[in-house]
């Protein structure tokens, strides 16, 4: 077998291992589904009336739920990344990564396994979440092509956050060390265009919300799904995702090769 075939086979083995966790301990997927679903209920059912009225930014004849769904999807991706970083960190602290590093296996397979598993997990919870949103009255104007583009962007962001999550998981000395990353990915959506337009925010917060990576992604998703203007957001969103993915990938690779052995 060629090197590439070995790499693919080892990655598949690692992926099976990671997916087995998901099947055996479905709590990770339940959390990344249930928490955003609850937030959806909260924002639509409790704050939705007031926020929607105050917005004026909802599409003509639209409802607040149509505005908020892309942001909720991003929160789900954030929760998924948090469980990825914990899983990688557990591998690191349990010492099994050291074992893998003394075996003649494809170096990238360990991390690729985690990332691909995260991708599958996150896409699955995103699909389920859209199902919940549809049940709650979410309506999209998008055709199949636009849905596909939205799915692609979600996958791209998941890829980026997963590689960052892997790097953080490798770098952190213990599970507590990953909490900073967890906090950031779970809080960032609140200071973005997820729940209210950035234009309604005050001074420096508005600047931050406008320029942080989640906002262009959310704006692009919203545009794709409900037909609001996208403008430059799509390009900025893709640039952020690619940039973060490359950063995470290179960082994780360097940490893995250097071997932060304990």
């Amino acid at each position: 077998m060629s090197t590439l075939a070995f790499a693919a086979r080892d990655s598949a083995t690692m992926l099976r291992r990671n997916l087995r966790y998901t099947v055996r301990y479905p709590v990770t997927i339940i959390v990344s589904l249930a928490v955003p679903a609850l937030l959806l209920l909260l924002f639509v059912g409790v704050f939705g009336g007031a926020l929607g009225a105050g917005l004026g930014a909802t599409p003509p004849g639209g409802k607040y739920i149509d505005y908020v769904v892309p942001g909720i999807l991003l929160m789900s991706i954030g929760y998924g990344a948090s469980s990825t970083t914990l899983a990688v960190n557990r591998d690191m602290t349990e010492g099994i990564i050291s074992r893998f590093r003394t075996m003649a296996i494809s170096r990238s397979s360990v991390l690729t396994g985690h990332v691909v598993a995260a991708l599958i997990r996150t896409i699955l919870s995103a699909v389920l979440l859209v199902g919940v949103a549809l049940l709650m009255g979410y309506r999209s104007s998008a055709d199949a092509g636009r849905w596909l583009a939205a799915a692609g962007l979600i996958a791209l962001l998941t890829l980026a956050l997963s590689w960052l999550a892997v790097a953080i998981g490798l770098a952190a000395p213990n599970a507590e060390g990953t909490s900073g990353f967890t906090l950031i990915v779970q809080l960032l959506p609140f200071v973005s265009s997820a729940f209210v337009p950035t234009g309604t925010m005050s001074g420096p917060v508005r600047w931050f919300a406008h320029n942080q990576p989640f906002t262009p992604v959310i704006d692009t998703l919203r545009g794709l799904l409900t037909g609001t203007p996208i403008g430059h957001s799509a390009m900025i969103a893709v640039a952020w995702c690619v940039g973060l993915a490359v950063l995470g990938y290179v960082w994780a690779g360097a940490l893995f090769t250097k071997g932060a052995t304990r």
Partner: protein
Amino acid sequence: MSPTTSSPAITASGLRKSFGDKVVLDRVDLSVAEGTVFSLLGPNGAGKTTTVHILSTLMRADGGEARVMGRDPARDPDAVRAVIGVTGQFSAVDGLLTGRENLQLMADLHHLPRAEGRRRAAELLGEFELADAADKRAATYSGGMRRRLDLAMTLVGDPRVIFLDEPTTGLDPRSRRTMWQIVRSLVGRGVTIFLTTQYLDEADELADRIAVLDQGRIVATGTPAELKRRVPGGHVRLQFADDAGLTAAERLLDGAARGDGLSLNVPGDAGIHALRALLTRLDDAGIEAEALSVHTPDLDDVFFALTGRPSTDTGSTDTASTEGVPGASAQTTDTAFDQKESVR
């Protein structure tokens, strides 16, 4: 039959490693014959784990040369990885998978065919007395079971060289004995074992050759018997039935000193010739000893003689043995198993 005549499985010359300005290995030379057990013996922080990390491709040395089965860990790590197995101080098992799944994971990573992998996993589970717990999650295993699973995982790929880094640290006496039996059976199959330990009795029990590592330097190498011979303290103890015999023998033998009860300690070599000569002298003088026992110095004596310090800080006012541990505090616990050589 003599282990020194076969070709070496592991060699190292002039290995050096520092972390910051802390010198951890200072020109270490090693040679391990194929099919033997080599023990690197030393207190915490001596550099044992660092040596294992370098030889097992986890870490690069700052200087020096190493070969494992003729392959260079620094330049050709994958070739080395293909022939080694490593069981470290921390049980590297996947706690969320069952014992069987852990072994099958290893089989998959060694690219064994499915059926072959399943067969190998079942075989190892039986051999390591894990069959009853095979389908329980490894996280629920006891310390001894985790170590056995860890070693079983190392064996899935049939490595020719196995690194065991403090395999029994923290285990209860019964689990230690089990590990020792397993190690002996591995050597029976022609595997070369590189064992690090801070337990002198373990090196004495298992090793064909021992190197004593102290603060990054090899201070002595040899067979357990050779090392013991380098150290004064061996004696023959004679036991007498009555005081008359004891007194007569004491007068006859130079340098003999009374021990507990009716016993006499005769210093010196305890070889066959010396013993025969001693018994002949007693016979000629008509003195009858009731019992005889031979006391060779143990490796504790060796360590003290070689380094001027005790090997462990147990029962000693001197805690010098934790010197040289990067970032370690001078703890005075007798089990010492939670102190590790920290390598970051």
